[in-house]
């Protein structure tokens, strides 16, 4: 399996702030890889290092096996980092023409991409008057229109309307599946990551704190939800430190699946009147918040 982006013990400091702290990751080529983390977790710094915009304090990064800033590797990459900005005197068409010239891709399908991101009607208007969502759409076109092998997207749907978000998600999945483009996607929208990404890394304070397939990350995180007619305090006393209240009449038990029969037996023996016991699958949000809580603790 080839590696699209690799970081080895990468550290980047800005004064006293450690944006990346001994950070290591290997993102495989193919599919959509999600990068999650709160503000300041180091997502944008990772991308900026990979694209040669900033230099690491220590450690190394490689893009398609080449060091950051290597132009032959960079020309395989399309990127949209943070809120995209454009020269105010250029239209959307001019902006893509400029980038095509800069990349040596004079024959790039500019009109096709403007249509694909829904900017045909606004193509000859100055980008200075664009809404945030329109700027995001243009940023996506700019990232994709030179037919890159890897696309790095930092919050690609922020500022977009719901219909636009759906279109862009579909576009990302389509490109990844049909055209084999590798997409690295940083997002705060966990639902977006869940829907779009195959694999995910969760970043906190400049480190990777969890990494794996979305199903893999959520698999071990299911909880047994026990609803009882008895007082919930009675249930919690049996569950001990593995339980927590979930509403007035239910508790969540943090146990393995094979521990469930013994737990239910213990509850019945303690006189708890169980009305329902069912497994509740964890979502990515739960995993994300739990991981960050553990990291903070």
């Amino acid at each position: 399996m080839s590696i699209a982006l690799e970081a080895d013990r990468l550290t980047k400091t800005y004064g006293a702030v450690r944006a990346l702290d001994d950070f290591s990751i290997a993102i495989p080529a193919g599919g959509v890889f999600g990068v999650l983390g709160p503000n300041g977790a180091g997502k944008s710094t990772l991308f900026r290092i990979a694209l040669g915009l900033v230099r690491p304090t220590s450690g190394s990064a490689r893009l398609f096996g080449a060091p950051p800033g290597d132009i032959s590797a960079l020309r395989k990459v399309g990127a949209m980092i943070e809120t995209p900005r454009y020269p105010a005197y250029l239209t959307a068409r001019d902006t893509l023409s400029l980038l095509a010239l800069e990349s040596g891709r004079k024959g790039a399908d500019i009109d096709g991409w403007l249509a694909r991101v829904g900017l045909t009607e606004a193509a000859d208007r100055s980008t200075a008057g664009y809404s945030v969502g329109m700027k995001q759409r243009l940023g996506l076109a700019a990232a994709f229109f030179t037919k890159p092998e890897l696309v790095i997207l930092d919050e690609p749907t922020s500022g977009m309307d719901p219909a636009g978000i759906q279109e862009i998600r579909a576009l990302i999945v389509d490109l990844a599946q049909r055209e084999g483009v590798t997409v690295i996607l940083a997002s705060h929208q966990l639902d977006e990551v869940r829907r779009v990404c195959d694999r995910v890394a969760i970043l906190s304070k400049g480190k990777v704190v969890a990494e794996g397939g979305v199903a893999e990350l959520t698999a071990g995180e299911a909880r047994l939800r026990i609803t009882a007619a008895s007082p919930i305090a009675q249930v919690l006393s049996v569950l001990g430190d593995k339980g927590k209240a979930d509403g007035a009449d239910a508790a969540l038990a943090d146990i393995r699946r094979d521990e469930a029969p013994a737990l239910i037996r213990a509850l019945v023996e303690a006189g708890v009147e169980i009305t329902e016991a069912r497994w509740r699958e964890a979502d990515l949000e739960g995993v994300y918040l739990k991981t960050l809580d553990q990291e903070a603790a």
Partner: protein
Amino acid sequence: MGNSLMLTDAILAERFRLLRDRSALFWGFCFAPLAGFVLSIGGDLFLRNVIRQPMPGMSVALLDQVIKALADGCSTFSALFLMIGAAAVLAGDYRGETWRLLTPRNTRPNLLLAKLLVVGEAIFWNLLLTAVLSALATIIGSAIGRKALIVTAMDRTVFDAIGVLAITWLEAMTLAALAACVGVLSRSTMGVVIACLGARFVETVLSTSLRLMDQGKVTGKLLAIPVFDADLLRGALLDPAQLGPAASSAGPALAALAAWIVALSAGAVFLFQRQDLTRE
């Protein structure tokens, strides 16, 4: 892909961009020649209204006027506008935070060199516009002032005009290369304009003071001042007899101008290659 091809890509992109940045194009590279033209015609009209009578025997020399305009093509007034244009090209990507769009698409040395070369090209067109408008103003002015129009009163040739254009271009390019350095360091268009005008002012003052102190001798200190080098070269080209022994320093003066351009450009590229573009 060859680096020269990639540099060509970067130049084409930068030229494309400047042609669409009408504000930088007009104020930076068209305004000063246009203002000179308008002021010249305005002055002729004013004089005609004041004097009213044709002045017999008065003439204007077309080539002499063009050469004078070209020699003033990097005066402090013209330099102010040239640096406004250069700042927009060389530091505009810091102001607009648009480096992040460009740096993944070409090498950093190419990106900065392309900007510098496009500024150089714009300065060339600015000087050519200066020459054309100056010629036009001279022709129109001769008609307004009812003066005879002659080609030259001082045996000037078109080659003199081309030579002065080249020297003034080199002089302006020392400022453009300085603008590239300051642009990278300060990340500010205003910083570029202020620093370059400040440098121009200091150069002029130093050149005048040292010339007086050294009583006409060409010293190493004087040769290190681009404004002096350009004046010396123009003098050596147009009137070597009046310069006397100083005319023999034309070669070192030309080398000094070229050295400033190369050193400042290399410095700008060196700094830019190592610069973190965290917030452009």
